[in-house]
């Protein structure tokens, strides 16, 4: 297990995403290169980080953004914890596909690219999971988000 904690401020975004991106490499043979799996994990996890910094700690001194990363061959689980505002992810507006949104895309990106669960509390716990699918490629995403 990889454990990381940083202050919940956007300037730590690069640190946090590099850990996730490097952890993705541990899910596959060394010879294989970064692929859709990595892109989707980093995209989803990056939105989770943004939301904690921007919404979770809005109007209060930022606490930590903490994550525990479990790496198995072929799967990754990121358990994100914060002590900020809680929210109800089911209330996030569905995204009208092809519409020109300027915001409100974060939760949609998370849900499209990974399995997501959320449990409000102290800390709030958001769990993102993704399994490598045999012979998978970007096409999977299309199927999953339809």
């Amino acid at each position: 297990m990889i454990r990381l904690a940083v202050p919940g401020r956007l300037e730590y975004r690069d640190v946090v995403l590099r850990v996730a991106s490097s952890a993705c490499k541990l899910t596959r043979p060394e010879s294989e290169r970064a692929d859709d799996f990595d892109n989707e994990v980093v995209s989803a996890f990056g939105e989770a980080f943004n939301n904690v910094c921007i919404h979770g700690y809005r109007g209060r001194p930022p606490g930590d953004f903490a994550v525990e990363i479990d790496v198995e061959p072929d799967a990754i689980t990121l358990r994100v914890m914060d002590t900020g505002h809680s929210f109800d992810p089911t209330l996030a507006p569905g995204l009208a596909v092809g519409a020109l949104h300027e915001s409100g895309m974060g939760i949609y990106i998370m849900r499209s690219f990974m399995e997501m669960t959320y449990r409000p509390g102290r800390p709030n716990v958001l769990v993102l999971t993704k399994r490598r699918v045999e012979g998978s490629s970007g096409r999977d995403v299309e199927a999953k988000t339809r």
Partner: protein
Amino acid sequence: MRFSRTDSGDETVLKVDGTLDAVTAPELRPALDALVAERRRLVTVDLSALRLIDSSGVGAIVSLFKRVRAEGGDVRISGLRDQPLAIFQLLRLDRVFMPGS
């Protein structure tokens, strides 16, 4: 994030490199606002050297698109690949910004 702007006639190419996200999108805003204020006809956003984008980065480009269109211009994207391509495809924005493809 680094960006460079090149004007030739009615077209502007805005090349954005590196990471366009919640941290860096605000740094790009003044350059985007200038394109709108100058009523550029055709803006091509070259993302061939963009490594990573998030919803804030997409939001900035969508906002540019809407405002340039409102002035009668158009915005295209070129060079999309890797993680940014995955995001634009997911949000079905590839069809908006690359209508020919």
